Every structure is written in structure tokens, then in C-alpha cells.
């Protein structure tokens, strides 16, 4: 019974392949039947079917020429084979959130946030509706039209303005401000108005607008242009005039530390007055200009141009996030943005290595003078000179709360006091964590640009970015970039390694003892990852050290090194496994405690020496270490179900390689990069592995499953005999817990923090590469999934049968 693994239920993953055929079927008749959609809650299934019955939708006579389906629940399906695909795609990416983008059929979702992003890049409500109805095969359902109206109506009524290092909430309509002030959070954040002596045009009308709230008063700035010309304080007037078209602007000042909360309250899901943050940098004469231009050889690619045009749509700079896959040239986008704004720019990266890389990118692509760019890291504190400059530093350096050295205290003070034209944030998906928020409240910037490859987190904090930074301005389609030859075409494979008898027996024993701790076996999934990892560290060691996996890894390294001459990165989160693998295979490795000098040396050898073709990396290698030479990744252990880590790791090999024409469709090399994930079957790892792949699957990647590695005839691999295997098992079992445990990474902090022991007792957050973040199994949206298996009656009917 229950023989091999072939019958394992992996339905969701396979499902995507059926998308095109579904499309064809749907094309014939306008019937949308989602009964086959997987739903965890079986007893909801009937309701779901009803909710998703779109037979009523009226099909337009020329529907074949139109590329998309818009459903009443806000979901939009786009046919990528339509001749109008390109235009429709550009439009959809602006107004909707991409959910899943396989080859032939894309799914998008209209959300209040995505519409907020749409209006903020300059689309008007009427345009959105008319274009959408033009592209849709069916008549637009009224629900959608109402939804778009409701989501966009209030946009642009409130502005957040930074003036002379103080934040003001501005609106042409005093009623709106009153509504805002009725909110507790906002009224608390408000600073008492004071008479601004410098700006003569601002009158404090304290008696104005007395009402039940105890007399809130707004500063009213007369900014009509005719007044401005005759005014003494010309600059201030100009600035205000530029910021608004209205004759009168009402405003109140808010506490800089509360800006984030105020913004959050104004989002569509709360008060629904999303704040507009634009920076009119051309007319900003207060802050000094920085002399930098893009070098002529820097030619932004079409998608980079497009993302920049979203940011600078109307001549002003908008805050927001640009999502591009790793290796697609995010740095050039960042540098170009800085070159356009031409003001002081603070660039934040995740670690010292990427600080160096950013500084290098700035020098490479722009004409900035060497003394206008400075790096600020724990071992590299360059003073910045001049009125305007580019400063590259890490999140930790800015957010660090403890005592700083004298040098860095000075620099931090300088950073705090300066009004930054652009705050450039790399790997912005790590920002929501508590400590990174601090960064945003410390630094005052007119415009924030976030760059990331993976806008997913396992907690729900990704939506925080909407008020911390701004809406998503652009998101590239990975498959289109692959087709265009801009990023490498990666073959993803999941290698299934069966557990050996002895290892599996031990694994089951450990699981049993864990079961006793966690009283209910099934509730295991919902435990915050931190806990389950603690419980399961020894389990993890067992499936990571599975001899079959080791052999598969050794085989793959051999194959790629000898037969293809590839450069290989092996990732292992588990330190014990990392050292064991690296020592047994005699390969260099880098982990948290490896010194900066040694890292540089190993990376240099890897890049340049034909002898060193494989390196082992712990999770320090996940982000921002630029290793363009590598084209094979073998992943032997990973951080549980983190989709972000999977995508980031894939990103290490996405940088396009070889000649451009070879990479195009029909070129010489169909695949030029390989991503292997080694998974021990019948263990928790299978669960995590599928979950991790979800993000990439949504981007249209497919994972090939390889079951017979290494080939049975291969005999010169390690752990061939039972004795060797038992010996390894003994080592794993005897390894002390702290050896088997996970690596604790201290991210690059201020100098003083580094004086402490390197491997301090960090929290989960520290080693996940994003302080304060909690990994949690959760379902996107309603949190249905969180209770997934608790109640057997809610199980999907397909699974019910198994659970009598």
C-alpha cells in the first residue's frame, strides 16, 4: 500500500498547467465556473460556486478581440496570447495587483490599494473605467464600477508636505481636515499650531473653525499667485504655490514620529483619504542641487524606463515601490531616479557588502564626483562634504538605538537634520520590520523610492509598505523579462531524496516526542515558525543530513563542475549541515561568522579562479551579495516556508549570462541557469518546499520534479555503505543542540554593537534577515487557511474521504 511518492497530492502546483485549456474553454461560452477552484472550506463550496457564477455577464459581440475578463468580485483574467496583451498588461499592472502570472493566462485582483496606486500615478477614475470596459470581453459589472468610484473618489484631497523639516497635512477643503482630526490617532499626532514668523503669508486663525472638538484650527496659507509675486518671502510662497493649485490651503502640522500612523489612518481601509506625497523637485530652491547626470553609456532598458516614467509621471517625484526581479538592474533604476531629482540622496542597503556595491553603482552609472558620495558603515565612516551629497548606508546604522561612537553620532545627527530629496531603499521588503520603521521616522525625505524583487512576506506586514513608503508603482513580469533575454532562463527543479531507513526511523521518533509537546499533532502548522523550529531543530538536522540528499548534492556538484563547467552556489541554512557538507566535499564556505576579509577573498577566488567552482553559503548569501558568475544553485536546507527566501536565492543566478541572442527564444541555450532544491521526501520539508515555491510559481516558473538522483550506477559518491551512513547518523544525533541549531546573524550594526560577540543570542528576526519579523503560516486574505485543519468538517470534500 501507498507505494512510491508519485501519487502524492500536490494538486495546487499542477493546477496552473490547466490554465490555458481553461481559457480556451471559457472562450467558447461565457460561463465562468469556479467550482473546480480549490477551497479549504468545503462547506463554503456551494456558496462559493454561487458567488462565482458569472453566467449573467453579458458577452460583447466582438469579445474575441478583447483581451480580458473582469469579474464582479474584482478579479481580472488576462489572456497573454491576445494581440492587445502588451497594452492591456501595462494598464492592468497600473490598476491591479498581479496574483498569478503563468504563461498563457494572468490573474489580477483589483484592490483599494492597487487603485490608490493607480490614481497616484495619474490615472483618473473615468479613464480607469473606460479603458477597463474597452478591454473587457464582457460588459463591466456594476459592482466593479462602483468599487472603482468608491476607491478613488477621495484620492488627492489630502497632501502630506514636508517643509523645512516639519510635516504638514494639507488640504484645500477644511471639512476634510476636520474629518481627519475627528480621528483620535490623527488629532493626537497633531502639533499645536504656532505663528510662523518667517512666513508672513501664513496666518494663524485660532478662532477660525471653532467647533465641538475644542477648537481645532488650521493654518491657512494664501498661496494665490498674485499675492506671491509681491511677497517678501518669495521662496516659501513659491514652494506652496507649486504644491497646490488652489487659492487657499488649509493645513496643520503633525508630529514627525507619528507620520506613519497618520498615513495609515488615511488609507482606504480606514478613513479613506489616502495621502498624496509628491515632490516637486524642479521647483525646490530651498535644498541645494547635486551635480550628477547619468553617463551616456547607461542605457536604461525598456522596463526600467517604464518604471521610472511611473515615478516621474507629471514632472514631480512620487513615493512608491518598484518591483523588479533580482538581476534585472534595480540599481540602475535607483541611480537614474537620483540623477533626475538631483538633490541629496540617502541610499539604504541591507549590509556592508551591498553598501559597497551601491556606491560602486553610483560611480559606474552617474557622473557624480567622488567626494560627493560617501559610505557610512560600521567600519567605513566617511564624512560627507558639501551641501548636497549621496550617502550610502545600512538600515541598521540608521536605526541603531544604542550608544554610538563619536564619529557616527555626528554623521547620524547630520543625516537626521538634513532634508533629503530622495530616500532610496534597497530590498524594501525588509523595511516593515519594527527597527526599519524607525529609519523612516528618523530621516526626513521628500520622496521615497523602494526597490525590491519580492514583495511577499510570510506575515501580513507587506501591506504596511503602502503607508510607510507608498503604493507600488511598477511590477515587472518575470517571464516577459526572460523572453526578452534580460534575465537568465532558469530551470527550476525539485530533487526528491528518499530518507534512508535509519534516518527516517529517527525522524519519526523525534516527531513523536514533538507531538507530545505540541499536544495536538495537527495544530503544528499554525505555530509561529519560531516555536516549531525550536521543537524541530533535531528533526531538521535529520532530514537535511539525509545521506541520500548528500549523495544527490555531491552528484549534482560533480555533474555541473565537470560536465558543464558551471559555477555553483550551495545554500544551507542549517549551520551543522553547512559545515558537514563543506568539510566532506572540501569546498569553501561563508557564514555569519566569516570575517569580511575572508568573505571577500573567497568570493574573489570563486569569481576568478578556475579551481574554485563551488561555494557553500549560509543565509548570509540570500540577499545582496552579487555573484554574477554563478549559474547553478543547489539548496540543501532553507528557512522553513519562506517564499521570499526562495525567490531571493533564485535571484542570485538571474543575472543574464552569455550572448544576448543565445538567450532569446530559439537561441542556442534554452536554459542557462539551474536551481535545484533538494528535498527529503516524507518529511516536513516537502510541505515547506511546496510553500516556498509558491511565489515563483505565481511568477510563472514551473518546478520539475527529479526522483532518481543520484543514478543508481554512480558508485564513487560518499555514504555508499551502511556503516558510513550509521556513522553520520551518530554524528547528527550526538551533535549538541547549539551546533545543530540555526545561525544567528548579527546584521551590520553600528561599531559598538559589533564589539560584542558576533554570535549573540539574536532573535528569530535577526537571522531571518529582517529584524522583528515573525514567520507565520497564514493564508493570504481572510485568514481562513489559518484554521485549515482544525475542524475536519470544514475540510474540502476531496479530502473528506480520507478522513472518515
Amino acid at each position, binding site marked *: 500500500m501507498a507505494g512510491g511518492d508519485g501519487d502524492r497530492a500536490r494538486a495546487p502546483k499542477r493546477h496552473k498547467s490547466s490554465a490555458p485549456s481553461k481559457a480556451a474553454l471559457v472562450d467558447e461560452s461565457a460561463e465562468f465556473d469556479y467550482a473546480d477552484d480549490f477551497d479549504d472550506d468545503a462547506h463554503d463550496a456551494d456558496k462559493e460556486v454561487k458567488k462565482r457564477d458569472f453566467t449573467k455577464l453579458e458577452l460583447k459581440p466582438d469579445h474575441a478581440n478583447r483581451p480580458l475578463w473582469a469579474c464582479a468580485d474584482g478579479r481580472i483574467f488576462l489572456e497573454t496570447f491576445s494581440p492587445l496583451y502588451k497594452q492591456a498588461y501595462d494598464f492592468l499592472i497600473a490598476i491591479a495587483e498581479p496574483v498569478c502570472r503563468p504563461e498563457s493566462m494572468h490573474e489580477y485582483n483589483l484592490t483599494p490599494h492597487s487603485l490608490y496606486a493607480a490614481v497616484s500615478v495619474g490615472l483618473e477614475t473615468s479613464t480607469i473605467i473606460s479603458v477597463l470596459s474597452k478591454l473587457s470581453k464582457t460588459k463591466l459589472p456594476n459592482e466593479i464600477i462602483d468599487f472603482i468610484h468608491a476607491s478613488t473618489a477621495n484620492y488627492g484631497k489630502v497632501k502630506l508636505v514636508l517643509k523645512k523639516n516639519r510635516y504638514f497635512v494639507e488640504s484645500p477643503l477644511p471639512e476634510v481636515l476636520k474629518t481627519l482630526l475627528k480621528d483620535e490617532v490623527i488629532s493626537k499626532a497633531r502639533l499645536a499650531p504656532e505663528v510662523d514668523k518667517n512666513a508672513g503669508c501664513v496666518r494663524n486663525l485660532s478662532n477660525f473653525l471653532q467647533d465641538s472638538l475644542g477648537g481645532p484650527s488650521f493654518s491657512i496659507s494664501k498661496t494665490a499667485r498674485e499675492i506671491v509675486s509681491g511677497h517678501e518671502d518669495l521662496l516659501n510662497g513659491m514652494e506652496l504655490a507649486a504644491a497646490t493649485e488652489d487659492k487657499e490651503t488649509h493645513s496643520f502640522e503633525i508630529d514627525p514620529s507619528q507620520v506613519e500612523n497618520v498615513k495609515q489612518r488615511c488609507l482606504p481601509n480606514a478613513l479613506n483619504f489616502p495621502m498624496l506625497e509628491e515632490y516637486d523637485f524642479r521647483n525646490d530652491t530651498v535644498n541645494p542641487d547635486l551635480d550628477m547626470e547619468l553617463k551616456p553609456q547607461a542605457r536604461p532598458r525598456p522596463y526600467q524606463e517604464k518604471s521610472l516614467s511611473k515615478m516621474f509621471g507629471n514632472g514631480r517625484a512620487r513615493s512608491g515601490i518598484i518591483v523588479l526581479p533580482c538581476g534585472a538592474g534595480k540599481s540602475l533604476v535607483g541611480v537614474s531616479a537620483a540623477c533626475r531629482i538631483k538633490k541629496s540622496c540617502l541610499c539604504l542597503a541591507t549590509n556592508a557588502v551591498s553598501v559597497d556595491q551601491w556606491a560602486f553603482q553610483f560611480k559606474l552609472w552617474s557622473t557624480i564626483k567622488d567626494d560627493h558620495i560617501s559610505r557610512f558603515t560600521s567600519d567605513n565612516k566617511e564624512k560627507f562634504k558639501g551641501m548636497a551629497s549621496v550617502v550610502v548606508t545600512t538600515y541598521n546604522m540608521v536605526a541603531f538605538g544604542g550608544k554610538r561612537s563619536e564619529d557616527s553620532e555626528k554623521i547620524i545627527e547630520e543625516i537626521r537634520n538634513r532634508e533629503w530629496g530622495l530616500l532610496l531603499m534597497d530590498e524594501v521588503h525588509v523595511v516593515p520590520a519594527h527597527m526599519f520603521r524607525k529609519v523612516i521616522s528618523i530621516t526626513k525625505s521628500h520622496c521615497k523610492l523602494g526597490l525590491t524583487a519580492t514583495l511577499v512576506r510570510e506575515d501580513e506586514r507587506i501591506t504596511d509598505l503602502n503607508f510607510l513608503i507608498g503604493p507600488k508603482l511598477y511590477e515587472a513580469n518575470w517571464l516577459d523579462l526572460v523572453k526578452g533575454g534580460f534575465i537568465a532562463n532558469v530551470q527550476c527543479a525539485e530533487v526528491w531524496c*528518499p530518507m534512508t531507513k535509519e534516518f527516517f526511523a529517527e525522524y*519519526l521518533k523525534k516527531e513523536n516526542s514533538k507531538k507530545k509537546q505540541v499536544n495536538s499533532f495537527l495544530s503544528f502548522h499554525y505555530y509561529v515558525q519560531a516555536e516549531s523550529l525550536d521543537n524541530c531543530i533535531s528533526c531538521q538536522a535529520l532530514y537535511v543530513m539525509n545521506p541520500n540528499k548528500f549523495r544527490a548534492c555531491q552528484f549534482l556538484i560533480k555533474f555541473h563542475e565537470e560536465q558543464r563547467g558551471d559555477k555553483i552556489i550551495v545554500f544551507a541554512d542549517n549551520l551543522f549541515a553547512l559545515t558537514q557538507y563543506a568539510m566532506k566535499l572540501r569546498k569553501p564556505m561563508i557564514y555569519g561568522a566569516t570575517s569580511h576579509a575572508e568573505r571577500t577573498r573567497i568570493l574573489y577566488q570563486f569569481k576568478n579562479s578556475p579551481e574554485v567552482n563551488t561555494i557553500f553559503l549560509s543565509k548570509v548569501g540570500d540577499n545582496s551579495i552579487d555573484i554574477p558568475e554563478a549559474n547553478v544553485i543547489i539548496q540543501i536546507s532553507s528557512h522553513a516556508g519562506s517564499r521570499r527566501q526562495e525567490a531571493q536565492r533564485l535571484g542570485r543566478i538571474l543575472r543574464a549570462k552569455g550572448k544576448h541572442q543565445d538567450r532569446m527564444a530559439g537561441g542556442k541555450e534554452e536554459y542557462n541557469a539551474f536551481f535545484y532544491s533538494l528535498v527529503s521526501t*516524507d518529511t516536513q520539508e516537502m510541505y515547506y518546499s511546496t510553500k516556498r515555491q509558491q511565489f515563483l510559481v505565481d511568477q510563472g516558473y514551473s518546478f520539475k520534479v527529479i526522483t532518481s538522483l543520484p543514478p543508481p550506477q554512480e558508485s564513487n559518491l560518499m555514504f555508499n555503505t551502511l556503516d558510513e551512513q550509521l556513522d553520520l547518523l551518530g554524528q547528527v544525533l550526538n551533535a549538541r543542540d547549539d551546533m545543530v541549531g540555526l545561525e544567528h546573524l548579527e546584521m551590520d550594526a553600528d561599531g559598538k554593537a559589533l564589539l560584542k560577540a558576533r554570535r549573540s543570542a539574536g532573535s528569530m528576526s535577526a537571522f531571518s534577515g529582517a529584524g522583528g519579523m515573525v514567520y507565520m503560516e497564514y493564508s493570504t486574505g*481572510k485568514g481562513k487557511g489559518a484554521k485549515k485543519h482544525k475542524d475536519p468538517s470544514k475540510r474540502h470534500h476531496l479530502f473528506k474521504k480520507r478522513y472518515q
Partner: protein
Amino acid sequence: MVNAIKGLFISCDIPMAQFIVNLNASMPASERFIVHMLDPTHMFVQPHVADFIRSKIAEFRDQNSYEKPQG
């Protein structure tokens, strides 16, 4: 004298065999069901446990497989 016992012959892969062995070991002595372990992939068990083993294995696998939540 020859002793005949009615039972169930199970053929499976190595890890699953271990799972069943483990399941057997976790039961109280009176309820243990494996009559004889023939080799690492075959065993002979009491006839009444087929459904029980099946459901346990299904449960075990379900835990190890991930379903995309529908948002």
C-alpha cells in the same frame, strides 16, 4: 504442526515501512499489529488494521503537503 494466521501482506517503500513500524511501536502492547517484518519493504500484519494504517498515512502525508490557500 503448522500454524496458519490470517493477515495482510503490505508492500511499500522503505520510509513508509518505517512509518508503520513506528506506528506499531507507539501502540500499547496489546494492540500492536505487525505479525512479522519480512524485509525492509514487506511486512505481514493483522487483517483488521488496513483502514487504520491507510488513514494514518493519509494524515501524515497531508501534513507534509502544502496547499495554496485561496484568498
